[in-house]
């Protein structure tokens, strides 16, 4: 007789094995390592939460401390490789294989370990791809998650930083996996139930809040005139003519400048209510003036942002909040929202090549993809029309039969021609190719592909790639906004002039914008303190952003 219950029986056995030192579901922090050794088997697939923002840091430390003879060769599947412990696991032999999406702070070390053969790489994914594979071929056996609090039954409150947790738990709990949560405290009753108790096997009382970093705060004091100019170009040259209401901003100073220019420059152009009203976005402090000025109808969030919890709580008409009043974020669903319910993505990158492919990769860092490739891609599965989508589709394929002509998502790359350390944004060959050769990857890690990009905005102007008829026009359009970089200086001036006449390239003066007017006085807020004032004192910035 076939046994179809392997997974279920195995889970039962593991849970029972830990019952001797668990008080119901509750395990003390000092027993966390012992718990890991009891319920995790060598070769298990483990999701160690590992989100973009929050980290199950107490569980990471506990896992790191296991006896490698008992627990080893784990296959780690997690969104973010963020804490040093995440990579220490591989050094110790506790973990062997890795599938992930983002590695920000660990990007240099992860590269070194990959080159050195210390990590067996499955693949680098986007968030949504990894979530998708949690349900097909990367289902975790064990999920180590981070929550704010739990009750004695095991109901969890994940709060503003809910992020990936519901998705991770859905895949793990319903496929005979084991869910272990670290919480700050056990309470009588959780403020709201984000994860129901029957999906949770163990709760470790960490006694302190989980690690979380502010990643989406940009100090208005650091915004430069160049960034303000590109923001003005984007608002007048793209947001306005396409009528972009539903959008996602990739985090960066250029988009922060856009957010801070809506109540001033945007207002002057009469755009309130016509653009930038519905966002798939984390709660950016830089969006506060626009929200307070009545620009924003609704925002759905991937995660939270340190310091913004009370502000969100005070603006439930704009944000998604639970019955307890606090933010409810959800990365998987917000990624889907960005994919299918937004008409534009706009963000920055480190390098763009002559086809418009872009990448944030350098030869010594492997930072992963995060969510940008999902946000910044045309979604061919989309069916519902909207004006911006149809307009972009018309520009891309003017000859097509209108009834069969799909629209296009606006995918905009914005940045100055020279980035930090005066590195050129535009290059002949992406560093990503050199990295792929070095690591023998099947594909170079491209963040956004040229054939998805619709516009490039620099201080020199806007290149509309939808209007380019062939690769050579596309190349010259890119060179035509590449400023004084080597790529820019290599332009064919006559061809660029013709492209300008066809409005494939628009210079600031073509849009009635004088670069000398791009002034910091245009920003609705020029400092973090201004943002606090805009919020009526409710926004509470972390210490590192204060200068008062």
């Amino acid at each position, binding site marked *: 007789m076939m046994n179809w219950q392997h997974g279920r029986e195995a889970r039962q056995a593991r849970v029972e094995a830990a019952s001797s030192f668990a008080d119901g579901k509750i395990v003390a922090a000092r027993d966390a390592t012992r718990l890991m050794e009891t319920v995790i088997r060598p070769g298990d697939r483990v999701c160690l939460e590992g989100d973009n923002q929050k980290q199950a840091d107490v569980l990471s430390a506990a896992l790191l401390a296991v006896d490698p003879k008992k627990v080893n060769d784990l296959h780690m599947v997690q969104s973010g490789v963020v804490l040093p412990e995440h990579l220490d696991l591989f050094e110790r032999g506790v973990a062997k294989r890795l599938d992930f999406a983002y590695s920000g702070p660990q990007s240099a070390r992860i590269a070194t370990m990959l080159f050195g053969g210390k990590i067996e790489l499955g693949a680098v994914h986007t968030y949504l791809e990894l979530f998708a594979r949690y349900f097909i071929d990367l289902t975790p056996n064990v999920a180590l998650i981070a929550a704010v609090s739990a009750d004695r039954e095991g109901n969890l409150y994940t709060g503003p930083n809910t992020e990936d947790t519901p998705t991770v738990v859905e895949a793990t709990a319903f496929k005979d996996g084991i869910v272990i949560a670290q919480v700050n405290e056990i309470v009588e009753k959780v403020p709201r139930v984000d994860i129901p108790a029957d999906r949770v096997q163990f709760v470790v009382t960490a006694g302190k809040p989980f690690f979380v970093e502010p990643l989406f705060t940009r100090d208005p004091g650091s915004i430069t005139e160049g960034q303000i100019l590109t923001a003005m170009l984007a608002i007048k040259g793209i947001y306005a003519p396409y009528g972009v209401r539903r959008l996602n901003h990739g985090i960066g100073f250029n988009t922060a400048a856009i957010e801070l220019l809506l109540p001033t420059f945007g*207002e002057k152009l009469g755009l309130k209510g016509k653009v930038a009203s519905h966002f798939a976005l984390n709660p950016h402090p830089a969006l506060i003036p626009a929200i*307070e000025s*009545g620009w924003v109808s609704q925002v759905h969030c991937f995660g939270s942002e340190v310091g913004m919890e009370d502000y969100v709580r005070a603006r439930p008409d704009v944000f998604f909040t639970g019955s307890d009043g606090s933010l409810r974020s959800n990365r998987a669903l917000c990624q889907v929202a960005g994919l299918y319910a937004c008409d534009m993505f706009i963000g920055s990158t480190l390098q763009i090549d002559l086809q418009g492919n872009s990448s944030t990769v350098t030869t010594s860092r492997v930072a992963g993809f995060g969510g940008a490739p999902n946000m910044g891609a045309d979604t061919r599965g989309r069916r519902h029309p909207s004006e911006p989508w149809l307009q972009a589709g018309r520009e891309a394929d003017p000859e097509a039969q209108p009834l069969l002509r799909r629209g296009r998502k606006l995918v905009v790359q914005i940045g100055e021609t020279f980035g930090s350390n005066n590195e050129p944004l535009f290059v002949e060959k992406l560093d990503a190719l050199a990295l792929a050769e070095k690591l023998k990857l099947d594909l170079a890690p491209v963040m956004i592909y040229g054939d998805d990009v619709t516009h490039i905005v620099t201080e020199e102007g806007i290149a509309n790639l939808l209007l380019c008829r062939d690769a050579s026009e596309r190349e010259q359009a890119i060179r035509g906004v590449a400023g004084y970089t080597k790529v820019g200086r290599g332009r064919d001036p006559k061809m660029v002039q013709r492209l300008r006449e066809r409005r494939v390239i628009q210079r600031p003066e073509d849009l009635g914008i004088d670069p000398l007017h791009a*002034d910091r006085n245009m*920003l609705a807020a*020029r400092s973090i303190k201004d943002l606090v*004032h*805009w919020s009526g004192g409710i926004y509470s910035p972390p*210490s590192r952003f204060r200068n*008062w």
Partner: protein
Amino acid sequence: MNAMRLQMTGSTGPDRKVSWYEASARTRTRLLLDAGSFLEFLGPELREVSPHLELFDLPEQFDDGIVVGQGRIDGAPVFVAAQEGRFMGGAFGEVHGAKLTGLLRAARDLKSIPVLILFDTGGVRLQEANAGELAIAEIMRAVIEARTAGAAVVGLIGGRSGCYGGGGLTAACCSALAVSEQGRIAVSGPEVIETNRGVEEFDSHDHALVWRTMGGKHRRLLGASELFVDDTVQDFRAAAIELLRSAGQFGIDTLHAEQSRLEDRLRRFGACHDAYDVWAAAGVQEPRSIPALPADEFIALADALGKVRRDAR
């Protein structure tokens, strides 16, 4: 909607609502004074640059980071020196220091024209250490000589680099000071204190602590600065006019009064561990609310507690 002002320029007169903090030394000077009244001495076209920076392969600035000259404020003549905080952190070098010394000596000799110093400095340039330190000594002497001759010297502090090192020392010699929230006045900087005394003594990354200890609001409550102003050129201009108008005579009695003021201050606050304790001892009901308080409310609160003694300094 809250009362935040939305800054869009384009009015008929000079826009003095601009941020002092954001403005360059030249912009501050131009907008502080009566329109068109400024005449620069030793301007950039004379190229009086630092003789030392080339040795270190560092770029020079034609005015060596300080603008000096004469103008009018509310109709009355005044000398102005404005430090450019973004050039080498506004630090004093040989030429920079000499320009200020010369201006102060002119005030001393003329007796009738007061001086406004727009401080924005981290102290003395390391690359010109000896010349810089010498300049500070000369400047402090020149301030006292000018005041003795009857020319008030008023300091305005609210820039990116604060007022540190020799700048802090010089500021303390002035007839009166006006400071904004962004301004900081001290001698040793936060990083120097942390390096020398350890992070437990002073965590330079704890910005709230830095501002509590050295920032404009604390200086006002402690009596180290006469006026606290909002971060606009307009407010600094009004403060300058008021402080110039009310500046008193300077002499040995002033110094005695100042000594007594400082002794009294030490007695009242010497045992305090943190600025919150100082503010509580000074009569502030809710010390922890001070940092977030908007400028106008803070000014009202500080004035209610008491203004700085006019006979001291």
